[in-house]
């Protein structure tokens, strides 16, 4: 097959925060770098992040310590987070914030001119004592401010963008990854982008669920690509349900609204988090708050005619705080819930928000696979951001640690690629059969006729995941979901699109995305069913306790033969003492 080929030192898949931070590092170093993004970069899902980004600056409180931030992150992760990675992230957080500020990010300010910091869930001082103000923000539009700032810096650094190009698949080489097959959405042109280093920054996959805070574009493209290349995904059973998605619409209301003093109430007007978590209350970890809300709803204390949501009360904060600190969520609430939080509480419900698992990497963002119990670096492949599992979030991510993750590890990827190229990292040759393999999915959708529609399969997939793999899980439900998923997987093979145009064919993109959603859902289903304990966001009725003796380990899923494997959790930080196992509140 005759395919146009272009060569780059680095190809970055994804133009969100992680991809843009990596590209900035590389473009500034003078390397030849290309960013492939299926949407114009500022349409990436980072733009929707609201509440902020954590760093132990101590601006609001007078003092803070990255070690306390690290402790909170490990506790929040329910001990599944890798302590070497968490140490690296929390230690680098302050410098990362200052860099973003120097780039121009319009942070909110304190009276003394320093960056304003607010309270957020699970953030404490002195190893679990009182709440701390650690979350830097630009009102409640921090993701928007960050993404635009990073894109602006990339304009200044003259990075090369392939905007509205879709990454179809990784191209394997004898050793490692040779590059990617990319499709120009506007023209239908298909090219092989060969790279010394390919960096996946493809974000999350919340669209496997019916109700999600995620954008339409969050379809797990990197997960599908990695699985099809024979590489594993890690900890895919750990999906975070955000306590406050607007009921019905799914749109996010930031945890920052509770950080500023808002709280949740049930139909009796009771502030129920005081009962579930007397210490941190509404600012407990998200998994704890989400489960508490679901219990309230299930036990008949939900609000509304169907009793299927709870209420987030903000009106007591007053117009000043809401308009200054939470203007964006006021706008969203009026538009999507018909409620002005100045006057009335917002109807909210736990909503799929974030995947803690993903593509396993080390702290340099190098992708790992496992052979005979040993980690192996996949040559030429990196991953950063939500698509990666480094793992700094373990079984449950703390709010405002994701914006931190994407910039810290986007930068780490950029730094390591620079160093590797300097040390002679070359191109890897792809055999014609490897290129054919990477084109197979595209060819199938071209060929298939008169099958079921993409929307039919996608809707069923989302329903199965919502009903059988939600906030609370049992073997019984998951087995049912499994059977349905396997049948659906067969039906997907013959599904088809009617639109065969080469010109801006979004139906074809949605079809390719559906393959990735299915791969992500299967990985989730296999690993959720396998893990017979409750840890962080993975909560099972049939195994309600954390089981460190058997399950203090990362789980891995390979598509071939649906193989499951495990990796140990890293409990060896370099500079501080390991944080020992203990119970959470």
């Amino acid at each position, binding site marked *: 097959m005759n395919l146009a080929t272009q060569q780059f030192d680095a190809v970055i898949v994804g133009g969100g925060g992680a991809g843009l931070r990596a590209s900035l590092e590389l473009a500034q170093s003078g390397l030849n770098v290309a960013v492939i993004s299926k*949407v*114009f970069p*500022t*349409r*990436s*899902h980072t*733009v*929707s992040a609201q509440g902020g980004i954590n760093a132990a600056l101590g601006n609001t409180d007078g003092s803070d310590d990255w070690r306390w931030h690290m402790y909170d992150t490990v506790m929040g992760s329910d001990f599944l987070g890798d302590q070497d990675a968490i140490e690296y992230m929390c230690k680098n957080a302050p410098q990362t*914030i*200052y860099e973003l*500020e*120097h*780039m*121009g990010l*319009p*942070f*909110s*300010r*304190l*009276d*003394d*001119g*320093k*960056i304003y910091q607010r309270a957020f869930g699970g953030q404490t001082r002195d190893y679990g004592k009182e709440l701390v103000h650690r979350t830097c923000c*630009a009102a409640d*539009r921090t993701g*928007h*401010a960050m993404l*635009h*700032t990073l894109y*602006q*810096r990339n*304009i*200044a650094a003259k990075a090369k963008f392939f905007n509205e190009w879709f990454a179809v698949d990784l191209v394997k080489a004898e050793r490692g990854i040779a590059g990617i097959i990319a499709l120009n959405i*506007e023209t239908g042109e298909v090219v092989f982008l060969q790279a010394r280093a390919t960096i996946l920054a493809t974000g999350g996959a919340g669209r496997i669920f019916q109700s999600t805070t995620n*954008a*339409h*574009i969050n379809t797990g493209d990197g997960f599908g690509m990695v699985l099809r290349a024979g590489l594993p995904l890690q900890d895919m059973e750990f999906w975070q349900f955000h306590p406050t998605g607007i009921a019905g*619409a799914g*749109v*996010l209301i930031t945890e920052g609204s509770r950080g500023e003093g808002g709280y949740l109430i049930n139909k009796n007007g009771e502030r129920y988090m005081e009962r579930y978590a007397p210490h941190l209350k509404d600012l407990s970890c998200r998994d704890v708050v989400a489960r508490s809300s679901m219990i309230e709803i299930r036990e008949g204390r939900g609000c509304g005619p169907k009793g299927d949501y709870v209420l987030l009360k903000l009106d007591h904060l007053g117009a000043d705080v809401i308009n200054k600190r939470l203007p*964006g969520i006021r*706008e*969203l609430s009026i*538009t*999507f819930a018909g409620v002005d939080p100045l006057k009335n509480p917002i109807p909210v419900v736990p909503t799929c928000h974030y995947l803690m698992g993903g593509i396993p990497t080390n702290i340099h963002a190098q992708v790992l696979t496992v052979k005979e119990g040993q980690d192996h670096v996949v040559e030429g492949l990196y991953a950063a951001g939500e698509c990666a599992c480094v793992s700094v979030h373990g079984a449950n991510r703390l709010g405002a640690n994701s914006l931190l993750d994407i910039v810290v590890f986007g930068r780490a990827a950029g730094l390591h690629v620079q160093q590797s190229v300097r040390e002679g990292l070359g191109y890897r040759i792809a055999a014609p059969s490897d290129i054919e393999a990477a084109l197979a999915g595209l060819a199938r959708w071209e060929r298939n006729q008169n099958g079921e*529609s*993409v*929307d039919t399969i996608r809707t069923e997939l989302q329903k199965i995941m919502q009903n059988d793999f939600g906030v609370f899980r049992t073997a019984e439900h998951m087995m049912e979901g499994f059977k349905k998923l396997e049948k659906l997987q067969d039906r997907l093979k013959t599904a088809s*699109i*009617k*639109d065969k*145009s*080469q*010109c*801006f*064919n*979004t*139906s074809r993109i949605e079809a390719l995305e559906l393959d990735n959603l299915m791969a992500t859902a299967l990985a989730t289903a296999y690993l959720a069913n396998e893990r017979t304990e409750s840890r962080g966001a993975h909560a099972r009725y049939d195994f309600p306790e954390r089981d460190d003796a058997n399950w203090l380990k990362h789980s891995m899923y390979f598509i071939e033969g649906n193989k499951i494997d495990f990796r140990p959790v890293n409990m060896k930080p370099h500079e501080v003492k390991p944080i020992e196992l203990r119970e959470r509140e």
Partner: protein
Amino acid sequence: MQFSIYRYNPETDKEPYMQEYQLDTEANNCYMVLDALLAIKNVMDDTLTLRRSCREGVCGSDGMNINGKNGLACTTHLSTLKEPIVIRPLPGLPVIRDLVVDMTQFYKQYESVKPYLQNSDPAPAKERLQSPEERTKLDGLYECILCACCTSSCPSYWWNPEKFVGPAGLLQAYRFVADSRDTQTNERLANLTDPFSLFRCRGIMNCVDVCPKGLNPTKAINQLKELMLEEAV
């Protein structure tokens, strides 16, 4: 509800046409224009082509012309619209297919104002200080989502898309002029003194009328002009 939607695929159509669709918006749980467009695409006609991403009015993908006025499909309530609901691509920009327009020139104009912070002093070890009052000056500017609703509603831009920066780009030009941390105000203003870049704005204020984020590019443009006057005096 009755929809009339602009269709054009250069591969198959000699010229654009309007296609009628009848959609049961209640049965399909549609509240916003975007819900309805996606329902039409998903259930009736998978060739209907549009951009969308966040579906909550922050990514700026789905700017389009709805019953004659530019706006975001995802934040426009169906209940506020008269039938038939007429949907067209953003005006004044080349159409790639259906509701998808070519935004190359729009982005070029954005880049022309050097939309990034420039500070000639060495960066301090920590953050640059900025008072809350100084920071407040960026409100109403930094929130732009680059949806192009404003620029594509501006007659001055329709006439001179290569020479007039347009409201979105000028809003960003002022965002950096207004930032106490940016030291390049003189260069930024000098960059706009030709007869077209800024001065083709005739104060029609279509931009203010359509901005889905409630921003005011005309005010920003006037502030740029005032600063230029001060410089000149």
